[in-house]
């Protein structure tokens, strides 16, 4: 399985297909992952924009665009509940599994990790390629389900049976898609772990690895060990749907007045346990790479070492371990007794501590800094309070009694969007602005970047803060009319308009980014040297690889010191790269 097919003979001409399509070069694969996942992010974003129209103006025809849709989804431009539920489920699925994970792990991990540890490539280049293409197929399966007669999956991204068992064919496609995506992640995880453990350059000890690499290491462990149970669950749900078993169906179900013709004896809660066994670690898969990116950029732009690097590493390892034993905090309201809920409340409170430590360390890293407010730094800085707000709103959810009024309300939606959108997405944008010159040899335009930053950071708060307010007022999530028919929701329902407008404004502010992203490939300011940010980590040292070239280092660099030796007293520059003796 450990094949690799480019041994220093860079001179032989590779065909276009081998070089850019079925490439085994981690940098090309990283870029493939990046472009594909950005596209999916855009798709997930568009689905959300449609939903937000319906939430702001329930039952009103969507002008212009509405007429493009079929009669079964939006007759005369008016969204049907079926379609709203599809959009919700697919927005969640696409954002999580096809947007953030492949961007944070597949793209950034692939491109940056081997460079940062001084490796020639990933340990298993062919496996790496397979991982991308399996992901790609999984994504196509997911998307194509929108064109099924009854549309895509509509039982939420959590796919709780019995609803998911009796839903239309879209759900089957969802399951097949998930099996591909899980397989892809597993292949990727094996590859990352082997690479990080085995291919570190001479002198790159564990304690000299950049925090980003640590974050990817822990993330890969989460993917490796948490994903398989969901694959098992997916197979079981496929059997329920296709073969007629009843793993998740109890006896005596009566659907629309008809006794369901199944053997029965199953348990709907079994799915929830298997699902959350994955999905809680999964949320840390969404946040850890983001924390890693932020740590890199904060160190670089404060021009000083990260405060408490070791403590952060210990925290991230502990976080990874704990994330396997908190899953049932998503299930307090399913009728859990006191013993189990006690256990899961304790573990949930415990797991919040390492997050507090990491965030505190990042905040403290700013003390004594010489702050450069570059675009990546702005995004990274915004991440800190935004993740903080998201994390803090996790606390009332993690305590069972306070979860009673909040469970399955907009408060939960607000909580996790604060962590994934102004949290992770801003961090990923930071990473794009930071590493773009590495991949292309050109900088992204700064003024456009700053417009993108302020527009995104501000409008996101106008989308997600009102969700917390609505949630506290008791408004349920996944409501096709946003709660308009409920009396108790009347005081807070008007926020739906604010949020939707903010969401479209957010969309507008992505335009400078998309323009910048493509324009700069050809027209951006060229970097003067390999190290435009005056950084210390290995990816910025002279490599044989000009943008998009094949191969990484002429000879493996030797590492002499820790990753963040900035402003070392007595050194002639304010950065002391890892590979300088």
């Amino acid at each position, binding site marked *: 399985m450990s094949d690799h097919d480019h041994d220093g003979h860079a001179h032989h001409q590779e065909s276009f297909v081998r070089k850019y399509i079925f490439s085994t070069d981690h940098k090309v694969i990283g870029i493939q992952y990046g472009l594909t996942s950005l596209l999916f992010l855009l798709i997930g974003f568009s689905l959300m924009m449609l939903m937000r129209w319906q939430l702001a103006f329930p039952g009103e025809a969507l002008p212009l665009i509405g007429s493009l849709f079929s009669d079964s989804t939006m007759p005369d431009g008016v969204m049907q509940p079926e379609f709203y539920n599809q959009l919700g489920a697919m927005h969640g699925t696409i954002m999580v599994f096809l947007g953030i994970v492949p961007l944070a792990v597949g793209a950034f991990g692939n491109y940056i990790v081997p460079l940062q540890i001084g490796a020639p490539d990933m340990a298993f280049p062919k496996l790496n390629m397979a991982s991308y293409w399996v992901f790609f197929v999984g994504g196509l399966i997911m998307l194509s389900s929108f064109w099924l007669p009854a549309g895509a999956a509509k039982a939420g991204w959590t796919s709780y049976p019995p609803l998911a068992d009796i839903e239309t064919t879209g759900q089957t496609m969802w399951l097949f898609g998930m099996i591909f995506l899980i397989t892809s992640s597993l292949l990727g995880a094996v590859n990352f772990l082997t690479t990080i453990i085995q291919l570190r350059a001479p002198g790159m000890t564990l304690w000299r690895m950049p925090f980003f690499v640590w974050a990817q290491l822990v993330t890969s462990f989460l993917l490796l060990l948490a994903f398989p149970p969901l694959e098992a669950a997916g197979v079981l749900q496929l059997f329920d749907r296709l073969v007629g078993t009843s793993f998740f169906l109890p006896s005596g179900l*009566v659907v629309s007045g008809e006794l369901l013709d199944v053997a029965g004896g199953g348990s709907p809660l079994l799915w929830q346990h298997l699902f959350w066994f994955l999905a809680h670690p999964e949320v840390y898969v969404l946040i850890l790479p983001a924390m890693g990116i932020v740590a890199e950029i904060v160190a670089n732009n404060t021009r000083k070492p990260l405060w408490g690097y070791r403590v952060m590493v210990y925290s991230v390892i502990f976080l990874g371990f704990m994330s396997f034993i908190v899953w049932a905090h998503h299930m307090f309201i399913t009728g859990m007794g006191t013993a189990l809920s006690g256990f899961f409340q304790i573990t949930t409170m415990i797991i919040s501590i390492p997050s507090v430590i990491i965030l505190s360390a990042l905040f403290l890293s700013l003390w004594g800094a010489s702050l450069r407010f570059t675009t990546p730094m702005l995004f990274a800085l915004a991440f800190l309070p935004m993740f903080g707000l998201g994390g803090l709103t996790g606390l009332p959810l993690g305590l069972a*009694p306070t979860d009673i*009024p909040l469970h399955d309300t907009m408060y939960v939606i607000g909580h996790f969007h604060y962590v994934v959108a102004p949290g992770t997405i801003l961090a990923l944008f930071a990473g794009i602005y930071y590493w773009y010159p590495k991949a292309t040899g050109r900088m992204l335009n700064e003024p456009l970047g700053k417009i993108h930053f302020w527009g995104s950071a501000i409008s996101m708060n106008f989308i997600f803060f009102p969700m917390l307010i609505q949630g506290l007022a008791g408004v349920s999530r996944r409501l096709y009319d946003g709660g308009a028919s409920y009396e108790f929701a009347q005081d807070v329902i008007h926020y739906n308009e604010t949020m939707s407008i903010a969401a479209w404004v957010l969309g507008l502010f992505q335009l400078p980014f998309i323009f910048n992203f493509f324009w700069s490939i050809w027209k951006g300011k060229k970097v003067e040297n390999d190290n435009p940010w005056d950084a210390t980590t290995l990816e910025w040292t002279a490599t044989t690889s000009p943008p998009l070239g094949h191969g990484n280092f002429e000879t493996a660099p030797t590492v002499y010191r820790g990753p963040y030796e900035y402003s070392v007293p007595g050194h002639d520059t304010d950065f002391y790269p890892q590979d300088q003796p």
Partner: protein
Amino acid sequence: MREFLDISQFLGMPGRASAHAADIDFMMSLVHWLMLFLFIGWGAYFIYVLFRFRASKNPTASYEGADGKYSKYQEVAVILAEATLLIGFAFPLWGFIKNDFPAAQDAPYTVNVVAEQFAWNVHYPGDDGVFGKRAPELIDAVRNPLGLDMTDAAAADDVVSVNELHLPVDRPVIINLSSKDVIHSFGVPQLRVKQDAIPGLVIPIWFRPTVEGEYEIACAQLCGLSHYRMRGFVTVESEDAVSAFLTEMSGGGL
């Protein structure tokens, strides 16, 4: 003190209509105080640092950086606060809600609630206080939505209503919650009650309504197309009014 700390109004939580609601709100307030302290503390620090350590003002960074003493205090404080919340509030309150069911001498008012796509069926035991037998085979969407077995003597005086749950004020209530088809969630914001209705299980919940009025039951778990309008009503009223309602329901049916 307690009144002072209770910021549930400020948080925009709906009015309270059950006995344990104040406890939940108080706990909610405490958690939000903790959040507020952390947010304001770190937020103020953050803004200060951004100004004080900008490159134009502080051209050379310090290699040593901050002294971590205060952050350690903060972490210990957070741990203590979370431990207090768990031990002092979360465990007792959850235990009370889950385990301290009213005993027989408290004369709890017991009803069955059976969720279905997309309605809340309520099954009252009638005067004899005994629920009639039910069987899934007997369910008829129109005439017998609960599958009540009419050959059972106990079933004769049972009352079934749809989306209308009438409860006596100031008397403990036990609801046996179940579902016919998919997972629903019985949520009543003002009562601070929420419980998933899981097919295959019959989950008892209890609370004591304290304020008369009509409250909405909002289904909180995605259950299909019309999840958004799976709305029922809880009417909390005097004992007499409940009896009158039940008489009307059973009389009207014949």
